[in-house]
């Protein structure tokens, strides 16, 4: 018994020790920061004209550090694959919402889509962009799922999967195309940079929206061909 308590106290002491080391390290690094850091904002402002957009955040995310954004989208897709690997969807029922919820969602969802489009468009010269627009689109999807709507079976198969990878495919295609045209990978030539960024962001918005909504749906919907097989044993209830 005393041995057990001793072990616990020892563990706590070790924890306190490690945490103090971490705190000291963090404090030291914060204190050793220069008071007036110039950062990279000056360089971004200098090169803003070469990016094809006029908002510095979008310029960094989709031009100067486009590689990061590309990988972020791949990570999002991997997250969905992780969720899907947990199991198949075993129930596919649609329920009718109440009158108020039905009317409200019919009013709100077009508004959500409009806001998503606005955020996507405004991203070129003000706060906004693909991730924000995509999450608003996903919110519309979540609202629809919560009111009892379920996507039709034909969409849950191949069309859904194509929409999920559409953003990433558009991004990679743009990257490879500029490389084939003689520039470096993900280096957008000024004449087409604005259009390319808008195109990539539009595709990314759609994919991010659908991916996040699919994450909310949870498990993997059956593919078109497998539907016939899966509804048999899947429809236990």
């Amino acid at each position, binding site marked *: 018994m005393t041995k057990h308590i001793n072990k616990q106290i020892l563990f706590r002491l070790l924890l306190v020790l490690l945490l103090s080391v971490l705190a000291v390290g963090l404090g030291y690094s914060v204190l050793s920061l220069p008071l007036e850091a110039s950062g990279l904002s000056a360089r971004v402002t200098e090169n803003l004209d070469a990016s094809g957009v006029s908002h510095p*955040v979008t310029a960094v995310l989709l031009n100067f550090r486009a590689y990061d954004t590309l990988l972020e989208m791949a990570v999002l897709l991997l997250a969905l694959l992780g969720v899907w690997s947990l199991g198949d969807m075993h129930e596919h029922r649609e329920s009718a919402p109440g009158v108020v919820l039905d009317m409200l969602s019919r009013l709100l969802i077009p508004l959500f889509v409009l806001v998503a489009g606005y955020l996507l468009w405004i991203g070129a010269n003000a706060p*906004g*962009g693909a991730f*924000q627009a995509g*999450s608003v689109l996903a*919110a519309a999807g*979540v609202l629809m799922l919560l009111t009892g709507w379920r996507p039709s079976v034909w969409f849950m198969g191949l069309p859904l999967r194509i929409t999920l990878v559409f953003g990433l495919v558009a991004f990679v295609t743009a990257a490879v195309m500029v490389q084939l045209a003689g520039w470096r990978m993900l280096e957008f030539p000024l004449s087409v940079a604005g259009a390319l960024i808008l195109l990539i962001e539009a595709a990314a918005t759609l994919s991010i929206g659908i991916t*996040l909504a699919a994450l*909310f749906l*949870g498990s993997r919907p059956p593919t078109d061909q497998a539907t016939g097989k899966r509804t048999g044993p899947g429809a236990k209830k």
Partner: protein
Amino acid sequence: MTLLQWTFDIVLGLTLLWLAFRALTSEDLFKGIVLFIAFGLLMALAWVRLNAPDIALAEAAIGAGLTGALLLAALAKLESATTETSATVKDENAEGLNSKSSEAQSHD
């Protein structure tokens, strides 16, 4: 910076710390999720105060909105899974329990 802004920032920072603490230590998972959503919304406000509206938008939409919805959906699945398993356990034990209770009643 005016006194009002200072006060607002200090209150915001302390509230964020308090909400984070409450969300992490909450015994009730549902309460923890609601506190997490509140934390996300106030965090968006903090990003606005730091002049980062881009991150504020993303935080409000993804951090508070969608993550909250995902957590609530996960909690609903968790609860339905636990009730299902406990229901099957009850079904299996039902006969034994019934016979025991009837025995107890007969003893009374």
